[in-house]
């Protein structure tokens, strides 16, 4: 499998505190799940891969190019889309304007991309003129995901997209993740606490424990014992 994203011994963190402690990761055309308990470092890892947090050591390659020290807008322009766990929208802009902000880069016509994301998330059509700040939690995640897709990414980093949402919504969202990967040919790195749902859509899995990673394994081979050890239960 040809790696699209390749991280070699990466370390990162905040204000001198190292959160990600020398991690190797290789993502190809797949859904790659990063599992772990609260505080394991999943969000920090994804923000680091999106280049929002600088590396303190290691190398990061995307599509054969070294992006270890590239600013976030460069990695975005090269095809990395990022959906943070919270505050993934601009609240004073309408839903449609949020999507337009996502479409500032890329070559395809904006309306063509818009039609695709509305087809994927039909609820957006009815809410396009609503202020993003008035959306419910589930709608916000949906629009944030759609905004990232408007960038025409080749790799999508999803940080706990269903945290705190109702079970019905969670099922629906994981179906959409599957659709994005299969129909739009987008690779996905999915950080998730909900191991059961993540394992349903993931091809491969890594369990993160306090910034250190387990072996990468096929989703089908993950056992309850591995998860218990990783989640330190």
């Amino acid at each position, binding site marked *: 499998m040809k790696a699209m994203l390749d991280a070699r011994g990466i370390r990162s963190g905040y204000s001198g505190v190292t959160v990600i402690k020398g991690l190797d990761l290789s993502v190809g055309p797949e859904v790659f799940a990063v599992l772990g308990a609260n505080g394991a470092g999943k969000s920090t890892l994804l923000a680091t891969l999106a280049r929002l947090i600088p590396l303190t050591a290691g190398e990061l390659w995307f599509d054969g190019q070294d992006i270890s020290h590239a600013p976030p807008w460069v990695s975005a322009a090269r095809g990395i889309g990022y959906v943070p766990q919270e*505050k993934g929208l*601009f609240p004073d802009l*309408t839903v449609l304007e949020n999507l337009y902000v996502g479409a500032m880069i890329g070559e395809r016509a904006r309306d063509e991309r818009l039609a695709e994301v509305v087809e994927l998330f039909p609820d957006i059509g009815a809410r396009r*003129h609503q202020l993003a700040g008035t959306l419910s939690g589930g709608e916000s995640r949906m629009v944030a995901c759609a905004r990232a897709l408007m960038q025409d990414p080749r790799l999508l980093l999803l940080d706990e997209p269903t945290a705190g949402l109702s079970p019905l919504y969670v099922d629906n969202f994981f179906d959409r993740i599957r659709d994005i990967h299969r129909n739009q040919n987008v690779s996905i790195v999915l950080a998730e606490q909900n191991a059961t749902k993540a394992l349903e859509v993931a091809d491969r899995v890594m369990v993160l424990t306090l910034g250190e990673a387990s072996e990468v394994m096929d989703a089908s081979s993950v056992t309850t014992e591995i998860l218990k050890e990783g989640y330190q239960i």
Partner: protein
Amino acid sequence: MNLDWLTQYVVTIVILIVTTVGLALLLHLQMGLAGIGNFGIVGFYGVGMYAFGIFLVHLPWPESWGMVAPVLASLLFGTVIAGIAGLLVGWLIVDLDADGILLGTLGFAAIVYGLSQTNRTWTGGAEGMGTTDFPYDIGTIKANTLLWLGITTVVVALILYYVIRVHRSPYGRLLIATGQNEALARSLGKPTFRTKMVMFATGSAAMGLLGGMYGVMLHYIRPVELGIGITLAAMVGLVLGGQARAWGAVVGVVLVGVLFELVFLIWIPFPTEWRRQSLPVIREMLYGATLILVLMTRPLGILGRMRRDRTVRRPAHD
């Protein structure tokens, strides 16, 4: 039409109000959209005013050129110098947090004020620098000033048109996105620092142009023109009108300008001895009190949110 009530002094105050509307519109771009609270408006306005004055007064303009070319060239010079000042100050402050931006811009305004008082060779120090004049003569001083009011209004109307266009443009959306969540905006493929710098420098240049234009009317440019009052008026007016809305700058500044500069200072018959010292100080206190009151009772201002929500509301779920 009888225009006797429109005294020279009233026309001058109206020009000041229109100029302040322009400054508040530019502040709206910086603070209302991009989240850069520029408390040094008067610094850029002052750089433009003094650069205009120095260029006009100290350069040996040939008499055969008349007044139009020297005034226009000096206004252009003031605009460019204020833009360069905006680039330098912006480079230092646009990535700082709100406190850093507040202190940086206030400090810049203090430096400009200090230079205007102490650099006697170029600025004339506390005594000021002159003379500047209108680039035309259509009869009386009042007629000349009224025409300048018209020209200033056209320039401010163009700034309003530009600001309204920015609101709905991709550039404006990027500014708003940067002001609301810069980390997220940076992950969308555009360099936010460059976006903020372009906006800050062009805004500063336009503030300089307004300063120069006001300097034309002053005839004599003095440091007293660079007090905190102009920043207060633009800031209070914008916050009162609604800092997230382009028209907020117009509504708010006209409201506080008419109330505090015309009604309070001119039309209410206070005793004459109050007018020299007490009333200007009380007026600045009124500006401060208005700012506190608006922020406490209606922080979004009269016009409210940046966008109208055109979807029928229904209870949030999840």
